[in-house]
């Protein structure tokens, strides 16, 4: 009895706050928590007329078909290795560019080049897809125009699956280089100047200053950024893969990721069982990696953990 009155009392006392936060709470219930509950569709024999919650259960049959179809291993492998490649190359390149930017003696050059590098961040993957077409189109693309002018054979990227790992890694880096390097540059600029002055007095050269002062000082920022990406190692950048690769069956072995697979199964084949099982496995894998990685980080340095 007493507890009930307490709760009511607090609710009334916090009424203005609760009212103000209500729209956001409703939003997350409708667009995040209900879809979480909807994950049960993976365990159901979905019928459109009965809906997610009304359809009959069918146990793990959807998963059995997914695993028996054999595609799942390849799309999981692709998703994982592409993401690892993006994280490793992205971090190295962005930190490298940030360090070089901080060393430029001309402020104008630094500002100007930051602006140019930031440009790709502002455009959608659709536009990057148009750029891609412009570069690699077999008949008119710039790359082939150059190759032909040099007397070399033109390349048809759409029939060469092997090239795609380089293409996708390149474009991923191209899109994010400005964002990442400006972020890391911000971290570098907030390093205490006195450290560099002290190093100067001790006779350190520029490389020693970079490796002993700059890099160690931005490690916390790097950890947070990597952590955010590692948590999504089983979630691909759908926009990039879909807009660059398109619906090209020749390339699926080399480029299909969970997200493109699920989207295709859902939107083109209407294959609800298969796609819901794949999406469910993906969500669970993502949650597990986030929990594990966060747990490891918490163990070593609590303040760098996500939660």
């Amino acid at each position, binding site marked *: 009895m007493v507890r009930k009155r307490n709760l009511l009392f607090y609710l009334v006392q916090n009424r203005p706050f609760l009212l103000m936060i209500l729209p956001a709470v409703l939003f997350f219930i409708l667009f995040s928590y209900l879809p979480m509950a909807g994950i049960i569709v993976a365990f159901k024999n979905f019928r459109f007329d009965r809906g997610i919650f009304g359809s009959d259960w069918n146990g793990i049959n959807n998963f059995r078909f997914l695993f028996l179809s054999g595609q799942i291993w390849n799309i999981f492998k692709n998703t994982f290795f592409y993401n690892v490649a993006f994280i490793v190359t992205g971090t190295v390149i962005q930190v490298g560019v940030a360090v070089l930017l901080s060393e430029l003696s001309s402020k104008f050059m630094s500002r100007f080049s930051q602006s140019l590098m930031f*440009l790709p961040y502002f455009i959608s993957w659709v536009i990057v897809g148009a750029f891609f077409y412009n570069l690699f189109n077999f008949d008119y693309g710039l790359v082939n125009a150059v190759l032909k002018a040099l007397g070399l054979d033109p390349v048809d990227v759409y029939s060469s699956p092997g090239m795609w790992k380089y293409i996708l890694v390149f474009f991923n880096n191209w899109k994010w280089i400005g964002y990442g390097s400006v972020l890391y540059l911000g971290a570098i600029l907030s390093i205490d100047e006195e450290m560099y002055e002290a190093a100067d007095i001790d006779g350190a*050269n520029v490389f020693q200053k970079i490796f002993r002062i700059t890099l160690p000082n931005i490690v916390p920022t790097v950890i947070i950024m990597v952590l955010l990406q590692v948590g999504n190692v089983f979630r691909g950048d759908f926009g990039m893969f879909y807009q660059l690769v398109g619906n090209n069956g020749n390339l699926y072995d080399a480029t299909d990721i969970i997200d493109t697979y699920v989207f295709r199964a859902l939107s083109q084949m209407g294959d609800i069982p298969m796609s819901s099982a794949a999406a469910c496995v993906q969500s669970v894998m993502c949650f597990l990696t986030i929990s594990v990685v966060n747990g490891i980080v918490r163990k070593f340095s609590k303040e760098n953990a996500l939660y």
Partner: protein
Amino acid sequence: MKAIRLDKLALNIVAYAVIAIVALLCVIPFIMVLAGSFTSENAVMTNGYGLWPSVFSVESYRAILTDPTSLLKAYGVTLLITITGTVAGLFLTAMTAYVLYRKEFRYRNKFAFFFYFTTLFNGGLVAYYLIMLKYYHMKDSLLALIVPLLLSPYYILIMRNFLNAVPDAIPESAKVDGASEFTIFTRLCLPLMKPALASIGMFIALGYWNDWYQAALFIDDQNKFPLQYMLYKMITNIEFLSYAAGNNGIPTVELPHETVKLAMTVVSIGPVVLVYPFVQKYFVKGLTVGAVKG
């Protein structure tokens, strides 16, 4: 003494060279598309694309601008969702962040985790798609383009971190003077939050402007295509090209296909590239605010 100068010089040469190359790589595709859109179709057919129009022509722009109805519609949809979505989303983000910032609010940490948890776990595309379609009836509804992108837990938490720098005494004293929480938020805190509102607002607006994914999932009605999705349809679908170019009567063969695609690309990048030098500083601010904690 000499050694120090030498290594500094060496590093500077490397730095200038690398940065110049990287920056060039970032703009070259833009130049290429712009040049291609001003090249005559025949020149493209024989020589392929280049970095400079080999035979200058505005044919492609004429093709899309003779009957710009579909283009204007797509612009209209994009503008509508960007403006309403950004205003509403920004207001809700700020109001939610304000509540989470007020230490008087008993359940602030519980709610903060309630929002944050959605970034850790989600129901996946299928559940989202089915719920949106079957229970919210979002097929071909403009709401499907606006509502799902209104709030992001990251932006709420970034905004709250920004507010945390505001001393508690400010809302407390207004409270003593009899102001309601909502008044304190709109009159006192919103003006203080201007820098954060500008940077988060930019992020939200860019998200809306560049969105094509929601349209790919839910919109079949060509009159409701946002700009990016229309461009996507046009690049991948030759029949859609004549629709987008407005030349419904003209056989598709006569359209300058290749260059029209590029002209459409230019037209849909245009506004973003034109404003980006001015808004970039807000993005950088948002980045630094965001990087303070996760």
